[in-house]
């Protein structure tokens, strides 16, 4: 129901029209967005064309596209992108499988369903820093419970350069699968029951029911989860930064942090931030295209 100001209202009496009131509500938000989002975005775009260090008193020098050229020809940066891509693939892939699997399990009548769902949601409500430190202990070769359970002896998860990235990804899967589970549950509960009844009458196999009924109908919500988790995956900093300092776990966000706040290469770090932004936007656009196709079906 829309409440409209009638002619005798106090606002009108003071001379405030509907339009003015609307603008009064919108303007602070727009001002906030301009000051804290749009202005820094444009400002940092400008800096990306300069050789500039915010921590020095040296005048910024216009270098055109040099920062972008340097970054894109730096094998270390490409290595960071490769590591990030690998991480996103493993971590988001794992979250989709585990999250959707959990949702399928919970989408059936089981005792204490609400309580179990709440428990499963707990990891994503915790701070990434706490989870990172907590999993560091779990992975510890000396007293970690993971090596104890799987009888792995002194296996050093976070010190082994070939394994460390996967160890961090496993932690991320543990933390964020519940998010995928939540969206999948919402999708699953919206699938009409009669479709399953019809499939049962036709003696359709479980696989057929999953691939022809469940997945196509849940796909739009799964794609939304995929978009969110991919974007977050590309931005991952906290978990990897806390858990490991291996070059093989140096995600692009960590490289960006080092460039900006350890080496104070402000111009170059702005350029790198834009490269990451463009990549994330491109990937998101591909997903959105598929999302629209899925919705249209």
């Amino acid at each position: 129901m829309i409440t409209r100001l009638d002619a005798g209202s106090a606002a009108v009496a003071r001379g405030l029209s509907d339009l003015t009131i609307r603008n009064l509500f919108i303007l602070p938000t727009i001002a906030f967005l301009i000051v804290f989002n749009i202005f820094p975005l444009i400002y940092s775009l400008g800096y990306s064309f300069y050789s500039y260090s915010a921590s020095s008193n040296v005048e910024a020098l216009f270098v055109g596209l040099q920062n972008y050229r340097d970054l894109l020809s730096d094998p270390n940066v490409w290595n960071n992108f490769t590591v990030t891509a690998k991480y996103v693939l493993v971590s988001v892939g794992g979250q989709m499988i585990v999250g959707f699997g959990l949702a399928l399990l919970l989408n059936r009548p089981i005792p204490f369903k609400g309580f179990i769902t709440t428990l499963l949601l707990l990891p994503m409500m915790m701070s990434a820093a706490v989870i990172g430190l907590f999993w560091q202990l779990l992975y510890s070769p000396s007293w970690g419970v993971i090596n104890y359970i799987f009888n792995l002896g002194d296996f050093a998860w976070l010190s082994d350069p070939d394994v460390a990235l996967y160890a961090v990804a496993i932690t991320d899967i543990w933390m964020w699968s519940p998010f995928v589970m939540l969206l999948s549950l919402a999708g699953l509960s919206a699938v009409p029951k009669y479709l399953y009844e019809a499939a049962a009458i036709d003696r359709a196999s479980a696989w057929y029911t999953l691939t022809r009924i469940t997945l196509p109908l849940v796909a739009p919500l799964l794609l939304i989860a995929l978009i969110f988790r991919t974007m977050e995956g590309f931005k991952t900093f906290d978990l990897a930064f806390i858990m490991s300092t291996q070059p093989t776990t140096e995600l692009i966000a960590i490289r960006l942090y080092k460039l900006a706040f350890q080496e104070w290469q402000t111009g170059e770090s702005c350029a790198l931030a834009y490269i990451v932004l463009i990549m994330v936007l491109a990937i998101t656009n591909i997903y959105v295209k598929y999302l629209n196709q899925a919705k249209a079906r």
Partner: protein
Amino acid sequence: MARTAGRTLVSLIAGVALTSAFAARAVAEELTIFWAEWDPANYLQELVNDYTKQTGVKVTVETTPWSDFQTKTFREFAAKGGTYDMVVGDSQWLGAGSTEGHYVDLTEFFKKNNLDKLMLPATVAGYAEYPPGSKKYWAIPLEGDANGWAYRKDWFEDPKEKAAFKAKYGYELGVPQDYKQLRDIAEFFHRPDQKRYGVAIYTDNSYDAIAMGVEQTIFSYGGDLGNYSTYKVAGLVNSKEAIEGLKAYRELYKFTPPGWGKVFFLEDNQAITEGLAAMSMNFFAFFPALANPATNPHAKDTGFFANPKGPTGAHFAALGGQGVSIISYSKKRDASMKFLEWFIKDETQKKWAELGGYTCSTAVLKSDAFRKATPYNEAFYQSMLMVKDFWATPEYAELLTQMNQRLYPYIVGDKGTAEEALNGLATDWENTFKKYHRYK
């Protein structure tokens, strides 16, 4: 009525004026020193309380965790903020601090007070002078520090262990005199089946931990990180000696406790307190915890020694520690200068050493009282006579990142060879110096 109102107004104005005057006085009489969060910062706070008693000027030592120290300091520099009046900055920051205008030039102060004679030469070169050899000074050496070693005396002195060691290696088990002995002892005590390990070394590559451990090994093997005056690195950082030094560090890593791939001072002290390792590398500033029975159950059995010699007799230790600089954006530079005048006095330096601070005053350091004050002071003194530092150029952070990226996979991940790692590092550093137009 009007008269009463008038009086009230006058009283109010007078009150406000008085309050403002007091507030201004209070502000003028407060100094803030920024440092990392560790025991020496607590000792410094205790020391400066004396200054407050003597002068009425309140001095606060504000701290932040080590992991955040560099970032937070340079963020403050970037903002040209006046939050801190002085910073006890890392030796590597000298280049950036001086050439980028963050530090006040203390050359006159240094000369007037003869500090180049009063302070240990290595600390003057390491914490105060930039560029090297220029006789321009930007800090007062405050906390001397070097990388040394702690060891389990009871393990070393056990007659059975001594006999077994002699039978295996052909010489007496004792404090290692060179890197070969260090390696042998690490190997000898490395018994994973007994949850006992040979050695604990730095491996964390998020800032300068692994670099400090490696550089002192390279220096002691006769290698170098480059020529700090000409910026020449090719043939120096990847010299035969440097390669051998890196190999030696990699060799030591084999005898560390499991999962020792990301450790710094905390874990290296834990290696001793938890009875994990026979020897542990650490900066001397972290050793008070090992000599204290309240924090180390093996305190009475813990000994200390300076970094041993390399195969050619070269003998170095990585320089830690910091100097105190006046931040050029501070509005209380004169008051800070007065504080420094008080800090360099002999009696202040003595008190600083008594509280647990590592004074850089030559007279205090050389005194028997200091050298016998703790079980580690003698080793500290010996180390301070042979310290050598990392690059202190403004671009040091980039050099550090590149060193971490090149060496860590070889040491911890066993990827590639020492030669490949150091050749790669020489190329990286050369490119960085070219970028900053260091070659004329």
